[in-house]
């Protein structure tokens, strides 16, 4: 079933075209002002037409500036002012973990983005909860007493967040009673709506959402005494430092990062020290080779493989 929030925000021409498609195979919707509407469907990109999907952009549904603006207004309940800080970061998270990536004209003042106006393109990402997708990885992370810190590495759209969510669910539902803290900066892991996670993140999990990782880690460790912290998309020195501090405090961290492969992690700014200090004991590499969530391998802190990749 299509997330109800999409019914609320999308124009009728898009909705009627989407109804022809299977919602469980729909991952992404790319809406461009004046451009052809595209979808990521069954693992590949196609154009959305009034009758379904096509490889030809000429027959695709085209939206206007006004359509894009209306989608944004509906997405924020006609309260753009209330979500401006998120718009400045380039995204908006809706109920059910649906995330809208935003492109438009940025307004700069004193070296910082003040707002984004004249939205030109929206990338609507639809989360898919795959219960059990982390079952094959989890045994390599749990030593019978504690969880090892793990970094999930993959290019965008390969299922990092889905795997993190499932890992959180498994860890937070174990009989050993692990307290799992989800530092959900972009509200994609637990998709908290009205204070409650709308996706399954296990029994013993607490969610701090919508704030920086630095804040969530610092206050979470002080106030919530977690055994494990789960966080998505490490990016930049501040995130890496927050993770290092948490691991040094004796908390296991499940995190993810955008990268082609584990081998290229050292090229990412801020990650050199993390790798050198062997803060993460396990690395899980995912790809889209056989569709999102394909396991390329699990590696130890020396990047030595401890499992083989999924067969073709």
């Amino acid at each position, binding site marked *: 079933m299509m997330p109800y929030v999409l019914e609320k925000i999308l124009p009728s021409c898009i909705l009627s075209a989407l109804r022809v498609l299977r919602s469980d195979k729909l991952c992404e919707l790319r809406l461009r002002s004046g451009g052809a509407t595209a979808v990521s469907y069954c693992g590949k990109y196609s154009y959305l037409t009034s009758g379904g999907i096509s490889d030809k952009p000429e027959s695709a549904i085209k939206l206007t500036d006004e359509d894009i603006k209306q989608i944004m207004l509906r997405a924020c*309940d006609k309260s*753009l002012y*209330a979500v401006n800080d998120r718009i400045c970061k380039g995204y908006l998270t809706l109920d059910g973990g649906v995330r809208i990536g935003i492109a438009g004209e940025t307004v700069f003042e004193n070296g910082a983005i003040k707002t984004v106006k004249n939205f030109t393109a929206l990338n609507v990402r639809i989360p898919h909860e795959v219960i059990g997708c982390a079952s094959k990885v989890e045994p390599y992370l749990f030593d019978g007493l504690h969880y090892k810190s793990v970094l999930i590495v993959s290019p965008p759209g390969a299922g990092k967040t889905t795997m993190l969510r499932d890992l959180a669910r498994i860890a937070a539902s174990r009989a050993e009673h692990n307290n799992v803290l989800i530092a959900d900066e972009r509200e994609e892991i637990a998709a908290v709506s009205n204070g409650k996670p709308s996706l399954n993140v296990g029994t013993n999990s607490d969610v701090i959402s919508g704030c920086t990782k630095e804040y969530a880690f610092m206050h979470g460790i002080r106030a919530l005494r977690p055994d494990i912290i789960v966080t998505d998309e490490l990016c930049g020195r501040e995130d890496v430092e927050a993770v290092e501090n948490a691991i040094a405090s004796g908390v296991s961290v499940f995190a993810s990062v955008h990268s082609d492969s584990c081998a290229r992690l050292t090229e990412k700014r801020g990650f050199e020290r993390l790798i050198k200090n062997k803060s993460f004991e396990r690395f899980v590499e995912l790809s889209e080779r056989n569709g999102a969530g394909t396991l390329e391998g699990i590696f130890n802190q020396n990047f030595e493989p401890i499992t083989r990749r999924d067969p073709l």
Partner: protein
Amino acid sequence: MITKLTIVCLCMTASAMVGLWNTKRKKSKVLYFDSCVKLTEKLIADISFRHENLFAILSEYSGSAQSELSKQIAKFCAAPYEKFEPEGKFLKAEEKRLVSDFFTSLGSSDAETQLYELENYNKRFYELYSDENEKFKRTGNVGLKLSVLLGLAIGILIL
């Protein structure tokens, strides 16, 4: 004699009713713009400090104040993404346009721009409120008295 007195009374009552209706109409306009000023003040406060959702602010306001504006807020909330057309029969065309622009502008920009717009609307609504209130003070009660007198005069003329 009784018939004559009844006719005069009837004329006076009818005329007073007309006068009362006119006074009420003028008073409604004063109260309407007063509500608009209060609403913009609430919006400014709630957007500045709480960054509260627009519909939450509007429903909170409607719940606390039963006025013509509350009906318009309900109408706006029923179709917030369409152009708003206020109904108020007592509003002039330019006043309707101002109210329509005000509702249409709500929630369509970042906080700083929204607050700037709201400050401007607040000033405009306050000016309208002051003008209407002044007019009401000047002509409201006089109009009622004059209509009663007019009724009396008509009654006498009929006799």
